[in-house]
């Protein structure tokens, strides 16, 4: 029987459990070089570099998205993917068999084509910053249509993925060195706040740490 029998005491063996895989930047596991450049430029507009934090690219948001798309999230692993696929009401939720990875592939190509049309001969990466923002707003409000892809849905997806990458634990490749957490004042993955629960309206003086990010562990 392919079942685990649980009997006689608490099951335990060494190596049980599933620690996270720490993303190492370098190379792309899903994006083509052109897609990667586009996404890097895109996340750098969604999260511009300023005095509050580095930009989306330097924070690793494009790496985050790349690794997510190359993994289970990108292929909707765990989703109910049996048909028939029918369109329903908004309240019935997404019903498309198109996975996030497929969406990015189609939409990024369509987006570059749309840019080439609107800004003759220029792909998104080649636009000036204010034009990039304009193109993104066009996706956002639906005025910039993508051929074969829903621009507004794609914008929502890439915005969500970018912001997730910006705010998630640095092990996933984004939020480099806890940039967003430092910006907002979230100290990270500390587990023991018993000394702080009674300190109402006081700043919590703890270093920013993540699951595999502990600058306080070195000199």
């Amino acid at each position: 029987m392919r079942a685990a029998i649980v009997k006689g005491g608490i099951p335990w063996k060494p190596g049980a459990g599933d620690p996270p895989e720490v993303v190492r930047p370098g190379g792309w596991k899903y994006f083509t070089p052109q897609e990667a450049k586009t996404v890097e430029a895109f996340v750098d507009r969604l999260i511009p570099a300023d005095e509050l934090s580095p930009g989306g690219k330097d924070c690793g948001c494009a790496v985050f998205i790349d690794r997510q798309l190359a993994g289970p999230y990108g292929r909707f692993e765990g989703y109910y993917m049996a048909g028939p696929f029918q369109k329903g009401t908004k309240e019935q939720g997404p019903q498309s068999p198109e996975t996030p990875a497929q969406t990015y592939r189609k939409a990024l190509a369509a987006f570059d084509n749309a840019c080439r049309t609107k800004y003759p001969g220029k792909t998104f990466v080649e636009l000036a910053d204010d034009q990039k923002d304009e193109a993104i707003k066009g996706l956002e409000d639906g005025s910039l249509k993508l051929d074969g892809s829903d621009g507004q849905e794609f914008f929502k997806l890439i915005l969500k993925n970018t912001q997730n990458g910006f705010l998630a634990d640095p092990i996933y490749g984004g939020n480099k060195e806890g940039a967003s957490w430092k910006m907002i004042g979230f100290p990270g993955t500390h587990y023991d706040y018993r000394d702080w629960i009674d300190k109402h309206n006081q700043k919590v003086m703890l270093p920013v740490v993540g699951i595999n990010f502990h600058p306080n562990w070195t000199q």
Partner: protein
Amino acid sequence: MRDGWKMLPKVLCAMSLGAAVGVSAAAHAGGIDKQDFNQVERGHYLAVVADCAACHTLPGSGHDLAGGRPLETPFGTLIAPNITPDPQTGIGAWTDDEFVNALTKGTARDGTHLYPAMPYTYYTKLSRDDVLAIRAYLNTLPAVHNAVQVNQLPFPFRIRASMAAWDEMFFTPGAFRPDGRKSAEWNRGAYLAEGPAHCGACHTPKNFLGADKRGERLQGYALQGWFAPDITNDARRGLGSWSIDDIVAYLKTGHNRTGAATGPMSETLNLSTSHMSDEDLKAIAVYLKDQPGQAASAPAAPDRAGMKIGGQIYADECSGCHSGNGQGAAGLFPSLNGSPVVQQTNPTSLLRVVLRGALSVGTRKAPTAPAMPAFAWVLNDDQVAAVVTYIRNTWGNAAPAVSASQVGKARQSLAERTD
């Protein structure tokens, strides 16, 4: 403590278990009244104290004391024999005297010498009456037909004849002699600890031939990938910070104010000490608390910078359970503050628990069985060394610093283990 011995790979026994289960009509001469159930019950209790099952029962086999369990020794693997009353493959045909000789003189029926993995060096302390009671109990077990090839040791250790010389050098047979200067309770504790409970078999350091270092009794020994700690009354490394009640609670339930049993001691707890009477456990505690420890030595103060880092690692990874003051939670998270395990000179058990995690024992009285998670994936050798050195030297603890290379060696040897 020599650690030059490599662990030889365990040889899994090829066992033929054609068990004919049934009550054996074991026929042998007297000394035991088979109808004396007091004798049988006493023998059962002593067999539990002596923890025969830990070696002679193969876990999961469903056949008590029928042998077949491989034992990891520094010299190789031995497989514990069948001690059910089966006449062919067990000890059913042995006379009582032969049985008494095995336990108290270390000789088998055919005169060959037993290896001291069978702790006859301790069981020799048993009175003849107690040995016969154990025999009476063993006689009541179902006879199991299970032939065991005991000797799996490599050359030259597998030459049993060499044990004659070993016994000559290291073994003094003879029953326990009470110390008239001590109380009856102390003597009972001494009898149990030095006799059937054979604590020193795991807890006393051994020389390169595997014999107890008599001058360092109960001061700790490395085996099976753990370090069985010092159980003298040493203030830091032994039981000095534990009261009699603490020791009794630990042996009875596996947990006390500050400690939790794990590893091979879990088995000892489950099979043996948790079934012993409170009086006997208290007697053992009284005896152990009267054992002097090592000469007190102040370890060198650890490196300040390392301690600072260790403190940060501790705050981030450890204090969620063990608290900032190291005191944990009674019955749940052992107190590191004052912990003997933390302060053992040999950090093997401590490193094992930190790197690999460990499940503590669950007993009827203390069923929770909390487990320590594994930190090997998130802490590198330097970081383990730093945090372990930190807990060994904070809150009044003092123990030698642990180096990154010690951690590296521990990590490597753990990788080779399957338990």
